[in-house]
Protein backbone atom coordinates (compact mmCIF):
# COMPACT_ATOMS: atom_id res chain seq x y z
CA UNK A 1 0.00 0.00 0.00
CA UNK A 2 2.72 2.39 1.04
CA UNK A 3 4.81 1.31 -1.92
CA UNK A 4 2.13 2.02 -4.53
CA UNK A 5 1.41 5.40 -3.00
CA UNK A 6 5.10 6.36 -3.11
CA UNK A 7 5.51 5.21 -6.71
CA UNK A 8 2.32 6.94 -7.84
CA UNK A 9 3.46 10.21 -6.32
CA UNK A 10 6.86 9.69 -7.96
CA UNK A 11 5.10 9.19 -11.28
CA UNK A 12 3.08 12.35 -10.69
CA UNK A 13 6.22 14.26 -9.86
CA UNK A 14 7.82 13.01 -13.06
CA UNK A 15 4.82 14.01 -15.16
CA UNK A 16 4.74 17.45 -13.59
CA UNK A 17 8.44 17.87 -14.28
CA UNK A 18 7.92 17.01 -17.94
CA UNK A 19 5.02 19.48 -18.09
CA UNK A 20 7.12 22.14 -16.40
CA UNK A 21 9.81 21.61 -18.99
CA UNK A 22 7.19 22.08 -21.74
CA UNK A 23 6.19 25.35 -20.11
CA UNK A 24 9.73 26.64 -19.79
CA UNK A 25 11.32 25.36 -22.99
CA UNK A 26 10.42 28.33 -25.23
CA UNK A 27 12.40 30.57 -22.89
CA UNK A 28 15.33 28.15 -22.85
CA UNK A 29 15.57 28.13 -26.65
CA UNK A 30 15.41 31.88 -26.66
CA UNK A 31 18.29 32.09 -24.22
CA UNK A 32 20.44 29.50 -25.99
CA UNK A 33 20.06 31.14 -29.38
CA UNK A 34 20.59 34.65 -28.14
CA UNK A 35 24.35 33.94 -27.87
CA UNK A 36 24.70 32.42 -31.35
CA UNK A 37 25.49 33.75 -34.76
CA UNK A 38 22.83 33.76 -37.42
CA UNK A 39 24.27 30.81 -39.38
CA UNK A 40 24.56 28.74 -36.22
CA UNK A 41 20.92 29.40 -35.38
CA UNK A 42 19.58 28.36 -38.77
CA UNK A 43 21.84 25.30 -39.03
CA UNK A 44 20.90 23.97 -35.59
CA UNK A 45 18.57 25.89 -33.25
CA UNK A 46 18.96 23.27 -30.51
CA UNK A 47 22.71 23.40 -29.94
CA UNK A 48 24.58 25.59 -27.52
CA UNK A 49 26.70 28.43 -28.87
CA UNK A 50 30.12 27.36 -30.14
CA UNK A 51 31.77 30.49 -28.92
CA UNK A 52 30.07 32.51 -26.28
CA UNK A 53 29.58 36.07 -27.52
CA UNK A 54 27.67 39.04 -26.22
CA UNK A 55 27.67 40.73 -29.60
CA UNK A 56 23.96 40.12 -30.22
CA UNK A 57 23.19 41.80 -26.95
CA UNK A 58 25.18 44.93 -27.68
CA UNK A 59 23.57 45.17 -31.14
CA UNK A 60 20.05 44.73 -29.74
CA UNK A 61 20.70 47.05 -26.82
CA UNK A 62 21.72 49.82 -29.18
CA UNK A 63 19.27 49.31 -32.04
CA UNK A 64 16.26 48.90 -29.76
CA UNK A 65 17.06 52.06 -27.89
CA UNK A 66 16.84 49.81 -24.86
CA UNK A 67 17.79 52.37 -22.26
CA UNK A 68 15.21 54.90 -23.34
CA UNK A 69 12.38 52.41 -23.79
CA UNK A 70 13.19 50.74 -20.49
CA UNK A 71 13.12 54.13 -18.76
CA UNK A 72 9.80 55.00 -20.42
CA UNK A 73 8.27 51.68 -19.38
CA UNK A 74 9.53 52.15 -15.83
CA UNK A 75 8.22 55.72 -15.46
CA UNK A 76 4.85 54.86 -16.98
CA UNK A 77 4.37 51.71 -14.92
CA UNK A 78 5.50 53.13 -11.58
CA UNK A 79 3.56 56.39 -11.82
CA UNK A 80 0.39 54.82 -13.22
CA UNK A 81 0.38 52.08 -10.57
CA UNK A 82 0.95 54.55 -7.71
CA UNK A 83 -1.73 56.93 -8.97
CA UNK A 84 -4.29 54.18 -9.56
CA UNK A 85 -3.82 52.86 -6.02
CA UNK A 86 -3.93 56.28 -4.38
CA UNK A 87 -6.99 57.75 -6.08
CA UNK A 88 -8.91 54.46 -6.07
CA UNK A 89 -8.32 53.85 -2.37
CA UNK A 90 -9.54 57.38 -1.57
CA UNK A 91 -12.63 56.99 -3.73
CA UNK A 92 -13.50 53.52 -2.45
CA UNK A 93 -13.12 54.76 1.11
CA UNK A 94 -15.39 57.74 0.44
CA UNK A 95 -17.98 55.53 -1.25
CA UNK A 96 -18.10 53.12 1.70
CA UNK A 97 -18.31 55.80 4.37
CA UNK A 98 -20.79 58.02 2.54
CA UNK A 99 -23.41 55.70 1.15
CA UNK A 100 -25.61 58.21 -0.60
CA UNK A 101 -27.73 57.19 -3.58
CA UNK A 102 -25.44 59.18 -5.88
CA UNK A 103 -22.32 57.42 -4.61
CA UNK A 104 -23.93 54.00 -4.86
CA UNK A 105 -24.98 54.58 -8.47
CA UNK A 106 -21.57 55.94 -9.39
CA UNK A 107 -19.98 52.85 -7.90
CA UNK A 108 -22.37 50.62 -9.84
CA UNK A 109 -21.54 52.46 -13.05
CA UNK A 110 -17.83 51.90 -12.47
CA UNK A 111 -18.32 48.20 -11.79
CA UNK A 112 -20.56 47.80 -14.83
CA UNK A 113 -18.01 49.57 -17.04
CA UNK A 114 -15.56 46.73 -16.42
CA UNK A 115 -17.19 44.61 -19.10
CA UNK A 116 -16.53 47.25 -21.78
CA UNK A 117 -13.58 45.94 -23.77
CA UNK A 118 -10.79 48.27 -24.80
CA UNK A 119 -11.59 47.60 -28.47
CA UNK A 120 -14.93 49.39 -28.08
CA UNK A 121 -13.18 52.52 -26.82
CA UNK A 122 -9.93 52.73 -28.74
CA UNK A 123 -11.24 54.46 -31.89
CA UNK A 124 -13.04 57.38 -30.17
CA UNK A 125 -10.21 57.59 -27.63
CA UNK A 126 -7.68 58.21 -30.38
CA UNK A 127 -10.00 60.71 -32.07
CA UNK A 128 -10.72 62.71 -28.91
CA UNK A 129 -7.17 62.83 -27.57
CA UNK A 130 -5.79 63.34 -31.04
CA UNK A 131 -7.92 66.43 -31.56
CA UNK A 132 -6.81 67.74 -28.16
CA UNK A 133 -3.22 67.19 -29.31
CA UNK A 134 -2.63 64.88 -26.35
CA UNK A 135 -1.26 61.87 -28.21
CA UNK A 136 2.41 60.87 -28.43
CA UNK A 137 2.91 61.84 -24.84
CA UNK A 138 3.97 59.64 -21.94
CA UNK A 139 1.88 61.67 -19.46
CA UNK A 140 -1.34 61.19 -21.45
CA UNK A 141 -0.68 57.47 -21.43
CA UNK A 142 -0.24 57.45 -17.65
CA UNK A 143 -3.48 59.40 -17.31
CA UNK A 144 -5.31 56.90 -19.52
CA UNK A 145 -4.06 53.99 -17.43
CA UNK A 146 -5.56 55.68 -14.38
CA UNK A 147 -8.88 55.99 -16.21
CA UNK A 148 -8.86 52.37 -17.36
CA UNK A 149 -7.46 50.92 -14.13
CA UNK A 150 -9.49 52.73 -11.48
CA UNK A 151 -12.73 50.73 -11.86
CA UNK A 152 -11.24 47.40 -10.86
CA UNK A 153 -9.12 49.02 -8.13
CA UNK A 154 -12.09 50.87 -6.62
CA UNK A 155 -14.06 47.62 -6.77
CA UNK A 156 -11.40 45.62 -4.92
CA UNK A 157 -10.69 48.37 -2.36
CA UNK A 158 -14.43 48.79 -1.77
CA UNK A 159 -14.67 45.22 -0.58
CA UNK A 160 -11.79 45.65 1.86
CA UNK A 161 -12.67 49.10 3.23
CA UNK A 162 -15.94 47.58 4.40
CA UNK A 163 -13.86 45.37 6.69
CA UNK A 164 -12.12 48.36 8.34
CA UNK A 165 -14.07 49.33 11.48
CA UNK A 166 -15.52 52.85 11.21
CA UNK A 167 -14.93 53.34 14.95
CA UNK A 168 -11.22 53.47 14.22
CA UNK A 169 -11.73 56.50 12.01
CA UNK A 170 -14.25 58.16 14.29
CA UNK A 171 -11.78 57.88 17.17
CA UNK A 172 -9.08 59.50 15.08
CA UNK A 173 -11.38 62.33 14.10
CA UNK A 174 -12.44 62.92 17.69
CA UNK A 175 -8.75 63.17 18.49
CA UNK A 176 -8.55 66.02 16.00
CA UNK A 177 -7.58 64.43 12.70
CA UNK A 178 -9.17 65.87 9.60
CA UNK A 179 -10.80 63.51 7.12
CA UNK A 180 -7.70 63.60 4.95
CA UNK A 181 -5.33 62.98 7.84
CA UNK A 182 -7.50 60.08 9.00
CA UNK A 183 -7.28 58.54 5.57
CA UNK A 184 -3.54 58.85 5.21
CA UNK A 185 -2.61 57.95 8.79
CA UNK A 186 -5.16 55.27 9.60
CA UNK A 187 -7.00 53.87 6.60
CA UNK A 188 -4.37 53.76 3.86
CA UNK A 189 -1.78 51.94 6.02
CA UNK A 190 -4.43 49.39 7.03
CA UNK A 191 -5.19 48.79 3.34
CA UNK A 192 -1.53 48.01 2.53
CA UNK A 193 -2.08 44.30 1.67
CA UNK A 194 -4.86 45.26 -0.72
CA UNK A 195 -2.64 47.93 -2.25
CA UNK A 196 0.03 45.29 -2.82
CA UNK A 197 -2.47 43.02 -4.59
CA UNK A 198 -3.77 45.81 -6.81
CA UNK A 199 -0.25 47.00 -7.62
CA UNK A 200 0.85 43.52 -8.68
CA UNK A 201 -2.14 43.09 -11.00
CA UNK A 202 -1.55 46.54 -12.50
CA UNK A 203 2.21 46.09 -12.94
CA UNK A 204 1.65 42.85 -14.90
CA UNK A 205 -0.93 44.60 -17.08
CA UNK A 206 0.76 47.95 -17.70
CA UNK A 207 4.36 46.77 -18.08
CA UNK A 208 3.33 44.31 -20.82
CA UNK A 209 0.53 46.26 -22.50
CA UNK A 210 0.90 46.71 -26.24
CA UNK A 211 -2.29 47.96 -27.90
CA UNK A 212 -2.85 51.17 -25.91
CA UNK A 213 0.77 52.42 -26.10
CA UNK A 214 0.88 51.51 -29.80
CA UNK A 215 -2.06 53.85 -30.38
CA UNK A 216 -0.90 56.67 -28.11
CA UNK A 217 2.88 56.76 -28.49
CA UNK A 218 4.15 57.55 -31.97
CA UNK A 219 7.72 58.83 -31.90
CA UNK A 220 10.52 56.30 -31.31
CA UNK A 221 11.88 58.14 -28.27
CA UNK A 222 8.57 57.68 -26.46
CA UNK A 223 8.35 53.93 -27.06
CA UNK A 224 7.84 51.45 -24.24
CA UNK A 225 9.68 48.12 -24.15
CA UNK A 226 6.99 46.03 -25.90
CA UNK A 227 6.72 48.67 -28.65
CA UNK A 228 10.43 48.87 -29.33
CA UNK A 229 10.75 45.08 -29.27
CA UNK A 230 8.02 44.78 -31.86
CA UNK A 231 9.38 47.46 -34.17
CA UNK A 232 12.90 46.04 -33.77
CA UNK A 233 11.51 42.66 -34.81
CA UNK A 234 9.84 44.20 -37.83
CA UNK A 235 13.00 45.84 -39.13
CA UNK A 236 15.46 43.01 -38.37
CA UNK A 237 13.31 40.00 -39.08
CA UNK A 238 16.03 38.02 -40.85
CA UNK A 239 18.80 38.57 -38.34
CA UNK A 240 17.81 36.07 -35.65
CA UNK A 241 20.71 36.50 -33.23
CA UNK A 242 20.06 40.12 -32.23
CA UNK A 243 16.31 39.45 -32.25
CA UNK A 244 16.67 36.68 -29.69
CA UNK A 245 18.90 38.90 -27.57
CA UNK A 246 16.36 41.71 -27.85
CA UNK A 247 13.57 39.44 -26.61
CA UNK A 248 15.72 38.27 -23.70
CA UNK A 249 16.42 41.90 -22.81
CA UNK A 250 12.69 42.65 -22.84
CA UNK A 251 11.86 39.71 -20.59
CA UNK A 252 14.78 40.16 -18.21
CA UNK A 253 13.50 42.98 -15.95
CA UNK A 254 10.22 41.32 -15.02
CA UNK A 255 11.95 37.94 -14.54
CA UNK A 256 14.38 39.54 -12.09
CA UNK A 257 11.48 41.04 -10.17
CA UNK A 258 9.72 37.67 -10.22
CA UNK A 259 12.79 35.93 -8.84
CA UNK A 260 12.59 38.04 -5.70
CA UNK A 261 8.87 38.66 -5.31
CA UNK A 262 7.48 35.40 -6.74
CA UNK A 263 5.53 34.45 -3.62
CA UNK A 264 3.87 37.86 -3.39
CA UNK A 265 3.03 37.95 -7.09
CA UNK A 266 1.27 34.59 -6.99
CA UNK A 267 -0.49 35.55 -3.76
CA UNK A 268 -1.52 38.87 -5.29
CA UNK A 269 -3.07 37.17 -8.31
CA UNK A 270 -4.83 34.73 -5.98
CA UNK A 271 -6.35 37.46 -3.83
CA UNK A 272 -7.25 39.62 -6.80
CA UNK A 273 -9.33 36.83 -8.27
CA UNK A 274 -11.53 36.19 -5.24
CA UNK A 275 -14.36 38.63 -5.67
Amino acid at each position, binding site marked *: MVGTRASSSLLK*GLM*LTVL*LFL*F*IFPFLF*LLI*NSFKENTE*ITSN*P*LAFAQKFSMENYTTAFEKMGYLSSFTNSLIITVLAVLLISLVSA*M*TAHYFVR*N*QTKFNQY*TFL*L*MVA*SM*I*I*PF*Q*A*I*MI*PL*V*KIYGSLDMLDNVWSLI*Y*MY*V*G*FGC*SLAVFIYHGFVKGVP*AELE*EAAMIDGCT*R*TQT*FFRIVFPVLMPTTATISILNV*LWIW*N*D*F*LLPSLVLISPENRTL*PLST*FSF*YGTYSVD*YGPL*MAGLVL*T*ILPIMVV*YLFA*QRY*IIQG*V*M*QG*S*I*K
Partner: protein
Amino acid sequence: MIKEKGKWNRIRTRLLFTGPTLFAFLTVMMVPFLYGIYLTFTNWDGISTTHSLVGFQNYSAVFKDIVFWKTFGLTLKYVAFTVILVNAVAFLLAYSLSRGIKGQNVFRAGFFIPNLVGGIVLGLIWQFIFSNVLVYVGQKTGIPILSTSWLADPDKAFWSLVIVTVWQYAGYMMVIYIAGLMSVPNDILEAASIDGASGWTRMSRMILPLMVPSFIVCIFLTLQRGFMVYDVNLSLTKGGPFKSTEMVSMHVYEKAFLSRDYGLGQAEALVLFLLVAAITLLQVYFSKKLEVEA
Protein backbone atom coordinates in the same frame (compact mmCIF):
# COMPACT_ATOMS: atom_id res chain seq x y z
CA MET B 1 -21.41 57.80 7.91
CA ILE B 2 -18.77 60.40 8.64
CA LYS B 3 -19.53 64.05 8.00
CA GLU B 4 -17.53 67.23 8.18
CA LYS B 5 -18.83 70.46 9.60
CA GLY B 6 -20.04 72.94 7.03
CA LYS B 7 -21.17 72.58 3.47
CA TRP B 8 -17.96 73.95 1.96
CA ASN B 9 -15.85 71.43 3.88
CA ARG B 10 -18.02 68.60 2.67
CA ILE B 11 -17.72 69.64 -0.95
CA ARG B 12 -13.97 70.00 -0.64
CA THR B 13 -13.59 66.53 0.85
CA ARG B 14 -15.82 65.04 -1.82
CA LEU B 15 -13.79 66.66 -4.57
CA LEU B 16 -10.50 65.58 -3.05
CA PHE B 17 -11.55 61.97 -2.48
CA THR B 18 -13.59 61.26 -5.57
CA GLY B 19 -12.71 64.07 -8.00
CA PRO B 20 -9.53 62.69 -9.62
CA THR B 21 -10.88 59.15 -9.98
CA LEU B 22 -14.22 60.18 -11.42
CA PHE B 23 -12.67 62.74 -13.76
CA ALA B 24 -10.24 60.16 -15.18
CA PHE B 25 -12.93 57.48 -15.32
CA LEU B 26 -15.36 59.76 -17.15
CA THR B 27 -12.88 61.26 -19.61
CA VAL B 28 -11.04 58.02 -20.43
CA MET B 29 -13.86 55.45 -20.28
CA MET B 30 -17.32 56.96 -20.41
CA VAL B 31 -16.95 59.91 -22.77
CA PRO B 32 -15.11 57.86 -25.44
CA PHE B 33 -17.60 55.03 -25.01
CA LEU B 34 -20.61 57.34 -25.55
CA TYR B 35 -18.84 59.30 -28.27
CA GLY B 36 -18.07 55.96 -29.90
CA ILE B 37 -21.78 55.21 -30.06
CA TYR B 38 -22.28 58.57 -31.78
CA LEU B 39 -19.41 57.83 -34.21
CA THR B 40 -21.19 54.72 -35.46
CA PHE B 41 -23.83 57.00 -36.98
CA THR B 42 -21.27 59.03 -38.95
CA ASN B 43 -19.09 58.49 -42.00
CA TRP B 44 -15.89 59.91 -40.49
CA ASP B 45 -12.72 58.80 -42.30
CA GLY B 46 -10.23 59.74 -39.63
CA ILE B 47 -8.68 62.66 -41.48
CA SER B 48 -11.28 65.21 -42.53
CA THR B 49 -12.47 67.69 -39.94
CA THR B 50 -16.09 67.30 -40.93
CA HIS B 51 -18.32 64.28 -41.02
CA SER B 52 -21.99 63.82 -41.55
CA LEU B 53 -24.63 61.68 -39.94
CA VAL B 54 -25.53 58.64 -41.95
CA GLY B 55 -28.11 56.99 -39.70
CA PHE B 56 -27.96 53.23 -39.47
CA GLN B 57 -25.93 52.84 -42.64
CA ASN B 58 -22.84 51.58 -40.78
CA TYR B 59 -24.86 48.96 -38.94
CA SER B 60 -26.34 47.59 -42.11
CA ALA B 61 -22.81 47.60 -43.52
CA VAL B 62 -21.69 45.51 -40.53
CA PHE B 63 -24.18 42.85 -41.51
CA LYS B 64 -22.95 42.93 -45.08
CA ASP B 65 -19.25 42.79 -44.13
CA ILE B 66 -18.62 39.11 -44.83
CA VAL B 67 -15.04 39.33 -43.55
CA PHE B 68 -16.26 40.62 -40.18
CA TRP B 69 -18.52 37.61 -39.71
CA LYS B 70 -15.83 35.28 -40.97
CA THR B 71 -13.36 36.61 -38.40
CA PHE B 72 -16.10 36.49 -35.77
CA GLY B 73 -16.84 32.85 -36.58
CA LEU B 74 -13.16 32.03 -36.39
CA THR B 75 -12.94 33.84 -33.05
CA LEU B 76 -15.88 31.78 -31.74
CA LYS B 77 -14.08 28.58 -32.72
CA TYR B 78 -10.88 29.85 -31.10
CA VAL B 79 -12.73 30.87 -27.92
CA ALA B 80 -14.51 27.51 -27.68
CA PHE B 81 -11.25 25.55 -27.84
CA THR B 82 -9.19 27.87 -25.64
CA VAL B 83 -11.83 28.18 -22.90
CA ILE B 84 -12.14 24.39 -22.62
CA LEU B 85 -8.44 23.60 -22.91
CA VAL B 86 -7.12 26.43 -20.72
CA ASN B 87 -9.53 25.58 -17.92
CA ALA B 88 -9.03 21.82 -18.16
CA VAL B 89 -5.24 22.12 -18.06
CA ALA B 90 -5.36 24.79 -15.34
CA PHE B 91 -7.67 22.72 -13.14
CA LEU B 92 -5.57 19.58 -13.50
CA LEU B 93 -2.40 21.51 -12.66
CA ALA B 94 -4.07 23.14 -9.67
CA TYR B 95 -5.43 19.80 -8.45
CA SER B 96 -2.05 18.07 -8.65
CA LEU B 97 -0.34 21.00 -6.98
CA SER B 98 -2.65 21.53 -4.04
CA ARG B 99 -2.07 18.43 -1.95
CA GLY B 100 1.41 18.86 -0.60
CA ILE B 101 3.52 17.37 -3.38
CA LYS B 102 7.26 17.90 -3.03
CA GLY B 103 8.42 21.21 -4.47
CA GLN B 104 4.90 22.35 -5.26
CA ASN B 105 5.85 26.00 -4.90
CA VAL B 106 8.56 25.62 -7.53
CA PHE B 107 6.02 24.07 -9.90
CA ARG B 108 3.45 26.76 -9.23
CA ALA B 109 6.02 29.49 -9.83
CA GLY B 110 7.19 27.77 -13.03
CA PHE B 111 3.77 27.31 -14.60
CA PHE B 112 2.98 30.96 -13.93
CA ILE B 113 6.01 32.30 -15.81
CA PRO B 114 4.37 32.90 -19.24
CA ASN B 115 2.00 35.39 -17.58
CA LEU B 116 4.87 37.67 -16.67
CA VAL B 117 5.52 38.38 -20.32
CA GLY B 118 3.23 40.29 -22.65
CA GLY B 119 1.41 38.68 -25.56
CA ILE B 120 3.53 40.43 -28.18
CA VAL B 121 6.77 38.96 -26.85
CA LEU B 122 5.23 35.52 -26.28
CA GLY B 123 4.01 35.48 -29.87
CA LEU B 124 7.44 36.40 -31.20
CA ILE B 125 9.11 33.64 -29.16
CA TRP B 126 6.67 31.03 -30.44
CA GLN B 127 7.04 32.27 -33.97
CA PHE B 128 10.69 31.28 -33.70
CA ILE B 129 9.82 27.94 -32.10
CA PHE B 130 7.24 27.03 -34.74
CA SER B 131 9.16 28.16 -37.79
CA ASN B 132 12.69 27.14 -36.72
CA VAL B 133 13.00 24.83 -33.73
CA LEU B 134 10.11 22.49 -34.53
CA VAL B 135 10.91 22.43 -38.25
CA TYR B 136 14.50 21.51 -37.41
CA VAL B 137 13.37 18.73 -35.08
CA GLY B 138 10.91 17.49 -37.69
CA GLN B 139 13.49 17.34 -40.43
CA LYS B 140 16.11 15.63 -38.25
CA THR B 141 13.74 13.02 -36.85
CA GLY B 142 11.60 12.62 -39.95
CA ILE B 143 8.34 13.40 -38.19
CA PRO B 144 6.28 14.73 -41.12
CA ILE B 145 3.86 16.83 -39.05
CA LEU B 146 6.75 18.98 -37.82
CA SER B 147 8.89 19.18 -40.91
CA THR B 148 7.16 22.21 -42.40
CA SER B 149 6.30 25.34 -40.48
CA TRP B 150 2.89 25.24 -38.82
CA LEU B 151 2.54 28.94 -39.39
CA ALA B 152 2.52 28.46 -43.18
CA ASP B 153 -0.51 26.20 -43.13
CA PRO B 154 -3.90 27.88 -42.44
CA ASP B 155 -5.29 25.04 -40.36
CA LYS B 156 -2.15 24.38 -38.33
CA ALA B 157 -1.61 28.11 -37.82
CA PHE B 158 -4.97 28.22 -36.05
CA TRP B 159 -3.94 25.37 -33.76
CA SER B 160 -0.61 26.99 -33.04
CA LEU B 161 -2.55 30.04 -31.86
CA VAL B 162 -4.64 27.81 -29.59
CA ILE B 163 -1.53 26.07 -28.21
CA VAL B 164 0.19 29.35 -27.40
CA THR B 165 -2.95 30.67 -25.68
CA VAL B 166 -3.31 27.55 -23.53
CA TRP B 167 0.36 27.77 -22.61
CA GLN B 168 -0.01 31.47 -21.81
CA TYR B 169 -3.10 31.39 -19.58
CA ALA B 170 -3.09 27.93 -17.97
CA GLY B 171 -0.71 29.08 -15.22
CA TYR B 172 -2.79 32.13 -14.38
CA MET B 173 -6.05 30.21 -14.13
CA MET B 174 -4.19 27.50 -12.17
CA VAL B 175 -3.47 30.10 -9.48
CA ILE B 176 -7.16 30.99 -9.25
CA TYR B 177 -8.15 27.31 -9.06
CA ILE B 178 -5.57 26.71 -6.32
CA ALA B 179 -7.18 29.52 -4.32
CA GLY B 180 -10.56 27.85 -4.88
CA LEU B 181 -9.30 24.39 -3.91
CA MET B 182 -7.81 25.77 -0.71
CA SER B 183 -11.21 27.08 0.28
CA VAL B 184 -12.81 23.63 0.05
CA PRO B 185 -12.99 22.63 3.72
CA ASN B 186 -10.76 19.67 4.47
CA ASP B 187 -12.95 18.30 7.25
CA ILE B 188 -15.89 17.54 4.98
CA LEU B 189 -13.57 15.71 2.56
CA GLU B 190 -12.17 13.69 5.44
CA ALA B 191 -15.63 12.94 6.73
CA ALA B 192 -16.60 11.74 3.25
CA SER B 193 -13.55 9.44 3.03
CA ILE B 194 -14.40 7.94 6.41
CA ASP B 195 -17.93 7.32 5.15
CA GLY B 196 -16.34 5.46 2.26
CA ALA B 197 -16.62 7.97 -0.60
CA SER B 198 -14.14 7.19 -3.36
CA GLY B 199 -11.83 9.75 -4.95
CA TRP B 200 -14.16 10.16 -7.89
CA THR B 201 -17.25 10.64 -5.70
CA ARG B 202 -15.46 13.28 -3.65
CA MET B 203 -14.42 15.03 -6.85
CA SER B 204 -17.79 15.00 -8.58
CA ARG B 205 -20.07 15.42 -5.58
CA MET B 206 -18.05 17.74 -3.36
CA ILE B 207 -14.99 19.39 -4.88
CA LEU B 208 -16.44 20.36 -8.26
CA PRO B 209 -19.71 21.80 -6.87
CA LEU B 210 -17.79 23.81 -4.28
CA MET B 211 -15.45 25.08 -6.97
CA VAL B 212 -18.21 26.65 -9.06
CA PRO B 213 -17.24 30.23 -8.06
CA SER B 214 -13.68 29.65 -9.31
CA PHE B 215 -14.99 28.19 -12.56
CA ILE B 216 -17.22 31.25 -13.02
CA VAL B 217 -14.27 33.61 -12.62
CA CYS B 218 -11.90 31.61 -14.81
CA ILE B 219 -14.37 30.96 -17.61
CA PHE B 220 -15.39 34.62 -17.55
CA LEU B 221 -11.75 35.71 -17.83
CA THR B 222 -10.87 33.22 -20.57
CA LEU B 223 -14.01 34.13 -22.54
CA GLN B 224 -13.24 37.84 -22.40
CA ARG B 225 -9.56 37.46 -23.22
CA GLY B 226 -10.36 35.02 -26.00
CA PHE B 227 -12.78 37.32 -27.75
CA MET B 228 -10.43 40.29 -27.44
CA VAL B 229 -7.24 38.48 -28.47
CA TYR B 230 -5.02 40.83 -30.40
CA ASP B 231 -1.35 40.91 -29.49
CA VAL B 232 -0.55 37.18 -29.73
CA ASN B 233 -2.54 37.10 -32.95
CA LEU B 234 -0.54 40.00 -34.33
CA SER B 235 2.91 38.79 -33.35
CA LEU B 236 2.48 35.04 -33.95
CA THR B 237 0.65 34.88 -37.27
CA LYS B 238 -0.18 38.48 -38.26
CA GLY B 239 -3.55 37.00 -39.23
CA GLY B 240 -1.90 34.90 -41.91
CA PRO B 241 -1.33 32.85 -43.90
CA PHE B 242 -3.77 34.49 -46.32
CA LYS B 243 -5.84 36.09 -43.49
CA SER B 244 -6.78 32.59 -42.33
CA THR B 245 -6.12 33.34 -38.65
CA GLU B 246 -7.36 36.91 -38.52
CA MET B 247 -9.44 37.28 -35.37
CA VAL B 248 -12.24 39.79 -35.02
CA SER B 249 -10.24 42.23 -32.92
CA MET B 250 -7.57 42.51 -35.59
CA HIS B 251 -10.25 43.01 -38.23
CA VAL B 252 -11.82 45.90 -36.30
CA TYR B 253 -8.39 47.48 -35.87
CA GLU B 254 -7.70 47.21 -39.60
CA LYS B 255 -11.11 48.54 -40.62
CA ALA B 256 -10.66 51.62 -38.48
CA PHE B 257 -6.98 52.47 -38.57
CA LEU B 258 -5.75 50.99 -41.84
CA SER B 259 -8.80 51.21 -44.12
CA ARG B 260 -9.69 54.53 -42.46
CA ASP B 261 -13.32 53.53 -42.09
CA TYR B 262 -13.80 54.69 -38.51
CA GLY B 263 -17.60 54.71 -38.49
CA LEU B 264 -17.82 51.12 -39.69
CA GLY B 265 -14.89 50.01 -37.51
CA GLN B 266 -16.55 51.50 -34.43
CA ALA B 267 -19.92 49.97 -35.34
CA GLU B 268 -18.22 46.57 -35.58
CA ALA B 269 -16.48 47.15 -32.26
CA LEU B 270 -19.85 47.90 -30.65
CA VAL B 271 -21.56 44.90 -32.21
CA LEU B 272 -18.67 42.80 -30.93
CA PHE B 273 -19.01 44.35 -27.46
CA LEU B 274 -22.76 43.63 -27.35
CA LEU B 275 -22.31 40.02 -28.46
CA VAL B 276 -19.50 39.40 -25.97
CA ALA B 277 -21.37 41.14 -23.13
CA ALA B 278 -24.43 38.98 -23.85
CA ILE B 279 -22.39 35.77 -23.91
CA THR B 280 -20.43 36.50 -20.73
CA LEU B 281 -23.50 37.69 -18.80
CA LEU B 282 -25.41 34.56 -19.81
CA GLN B 283 -22.45 32.46 -18.71
CA VAL B 284 -22.29 34.14 -15.30
CA TYR B 285 -26.08 33.97 -14.88
CA PHE B 286 -26.30 30.25 -15.64
CA SER B 287 -23.25 29.26 -13.66
CA LYS B 288 -24.43 31.23 -10.61
CA LYS B 289 -27.36 28.83 -10.54
CA LEU B 290 -24.94 25.97 -10.00
CA GLU B 291 -23.41 27.48 -6.90
CA VAL B 292 -23.77 25.61 -3.63
CA GLU B 293 -22.66 26.33 -0.09
CA ALA B 294 -20.40 24.14 1.95
